[in-house]
């Protein structure tokens, strides 16, 4: 059985470069994406490393404020649009959506391939912008700095993000239509794994928010090229309009980054607790609620920007509303662990790390939603720490959790377990050491995006930079042992974790057509039998 599966695996279906670059197989496209975003992750990470290096000394070690500004802009742009937003949907999502649905492919396979090419084209333009001198506006591109004053390759960066946006839209559209139309017989909405629900919620945001960003960036480019436009204060235009439009996308985009992480964690916690997910419907509807309410809160990025007091009050109240569904999820995961049979394989360690870091990040978000507290804390390192806890501590941990969990399914090889656990622990420790001091820095008033800073912030910055070194080790480690496992890793069985879900019923790696016979779903997800023996093979 296993031999037959290996022969027909999607990986063996053509070995030429052409067979990869012209593939419409969702699994192969997922692999193409993994290669691409891994590159961007380390490119953005390298910039982060240089930023932390610079901040070791209050005077700045890299010698030029301009270089520093370009570094953090590059870090932000690459990490947000070329890693965090696409990370889970285009890799794990692309691979798993049809498998979990019991479908043979996504609804529009050619669109899927096109979206990869768009993504790569965007990446090339972004790299051109970086190599050609960089951008010094930060990833937020605020006008009028970006439209009139900034030097550098603003237009190239804007074009890159514009193209990447269409790649996102294509992916989101594909997922939504696929989930609506290609569910296997018996796969009703409430029988879908939470991962699919969270990808659905993510796709809603991608499809409805990304076009707003695309148009906003076009307006920005228009203003920069022609020297006049709708954000131009000289003719009565409103620079805050740009911020409204930008955050209309960029705040929901935060949920694009974190919702798939919720999905991943909701798969892993039950699998390693051998227990049904606690409160399935609440978790599902919390995802949908986040996707909708997430669109109502963008104004909380602008509490000191000069918006009206009324709108600040409204946005503050709505921001608290969106925090509630996130809280629901955290409690549900913990309740799932209650009375379980918990195993501590690497995916579970990453998942537990995720819960801790995400909760910390989420709670500090409450500080920023409380209007008066936000006035003091915003635009300082407090904000930097807050969103890194959510994005990096949360999202990257979730991505690694999912990558380890489904790695045997994707590659047909097991990763070395001890190394996996070591990586999870190093990342958790390094992360906290890097970013916790930044909460204190922020409270003490250290502003963001400062190339040099007053002497009295030095000790905490030093601590943070030391943590970054450990974090770097933690991120390079998986790159090493996962690559190693491709060549030497133990062969994986179809279901090494004893997990539920359709993707585990087919071979590892799956055949090109996913399922020899279209499966018929009769059971709700996560039907784990307690104390079930886990055969590791």
């Amino acid at each position: 059985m296993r031999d037959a599966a290996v022969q027909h695996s999607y990986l063996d279906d053509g070995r030429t470069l052409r067979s990869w670059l012209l593939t419409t197989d969702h699994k192969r496209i997922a692999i193409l994406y993994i290669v691409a975003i891994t590159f961007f992750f380390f490119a953005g990470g390298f910039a982060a490393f240089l930023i932390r290096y610079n901040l070791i000394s209050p005077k700045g070690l890299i010698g030029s404020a301009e270089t520093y500004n370009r570094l953090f802009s590059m870090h932000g742009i690459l990490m947000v649009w070329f890693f965090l937003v696409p990370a889970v949907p285009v890799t794990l999502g692309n691979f798993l959506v049809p498998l979990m649905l019991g479908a043979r492919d996504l609804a529009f396979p050619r669109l899927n391939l096109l979206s990869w090419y768009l993504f790569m084209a965007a990446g090339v333009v972004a790299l051109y912008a970086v190599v050609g001198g960089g951008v010094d506006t930060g990833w937020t591109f605020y006008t009028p700095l970006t439209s009139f004053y900034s030097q550098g390759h603003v237009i190239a960066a804007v074009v890159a993000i514009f193209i990447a946006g269409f790649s996102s839209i294509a992916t989101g559209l594909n997922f939504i239509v696929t989930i609506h139309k290609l569910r296997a017989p018996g796969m009703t909405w409430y029988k879908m794994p939470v991962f699919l629900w969270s990808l659905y919620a993510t796709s809603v945001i991608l499809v409805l928010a990304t076009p707003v960003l695309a148009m906003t960036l076009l307006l920005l480019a228009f203003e920069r090229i022609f020297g006049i436009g709708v954000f131009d204060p000289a003719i009565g235009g409103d620079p805050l309009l740009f911020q409204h439009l930008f955050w209309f996308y960029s705040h929901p985009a935060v949920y694009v980054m974190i919702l798939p992480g919720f999905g991943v964690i909701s798969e892993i916690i039950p699998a390693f607790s051998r227990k049904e997910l606690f409160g399935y419907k609440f978790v599902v509807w919390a995802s949908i609620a986040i996707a909708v309410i997430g669109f109502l809160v963008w104004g909380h990025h602008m509490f000191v920007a000069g918006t009206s007091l009324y709108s600040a009050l409204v946005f503050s109240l709505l921001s608290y509303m969106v925090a509630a569904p996130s809280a629901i999820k955290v409690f549900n995961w913990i309740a799932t662990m209650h009375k379980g049979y918990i195993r501590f394989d690497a995916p579970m360690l990453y998942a537990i790390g995720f819960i801790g870091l995400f909760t910390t990040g989420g709670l500090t978000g409450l500080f920023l939603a409380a209007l008066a507290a936000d006035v003091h804390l915003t635009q300082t390192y407090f904000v930097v720490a807050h969103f890194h806890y959510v994005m990096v501590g949360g999202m990257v941990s979730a991505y690694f959790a999912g990558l380890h969990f489904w790695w045997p399914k994707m590659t047909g090889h097991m990763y070395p377990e001890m190394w996996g656990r070591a990586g999870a622990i190093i990342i958790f420790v390094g992360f906290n050491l890097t970013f916790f001091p930044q909460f204190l820095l922020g409270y003490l008033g250290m502003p963001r995006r400062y190339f040099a800073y007053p002497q009295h912030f030095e000790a905490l910055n030093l601590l943070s930079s030391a943590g970054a070194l450990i974090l770097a080790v933690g991120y390079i480690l998986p790159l090493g042992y996962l690559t190693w496992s491709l060549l030497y890793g133990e062969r994986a069985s179809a279901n090494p974790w004893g997990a539920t879900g359709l993707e585990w019923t087919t071979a590892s790696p799956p055949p090109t057509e996913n399922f020899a016979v279209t499966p018929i779903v009769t059971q709700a997800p996560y039907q784990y039998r307690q104390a079930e023996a886990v055969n590791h093979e």
Partner: protein
Amino acid sequence: MTAIVLRLVAVASLMFALLAAEFAATFVFSGWGRGGVAIIAITMAAVAAFGFMDLHQEDVTVWLFAAAAVLWLTILLGLGSLDPFTRSLFPTNSMTP
């Protein structure tokens, strides 16, 4: 088939009538003003969606997508204009201290 074409003719006629009404709201009935124009414009968009794009024949999925577009546009325009409409502006002409 004739029925379909006749229906299209009816839809097109309705559109032209609404276009005329839009002009009337603008120039003739000054009391109607901008509100009337806005209402008629939205009506015309809806007529096009149902009459030309046959929204009524599509399944619930399509309805969901169309409703999402309208809802999210409302969020963008509604919450987006909350700020300028509740803010008092103090434009500065001279920029030197």
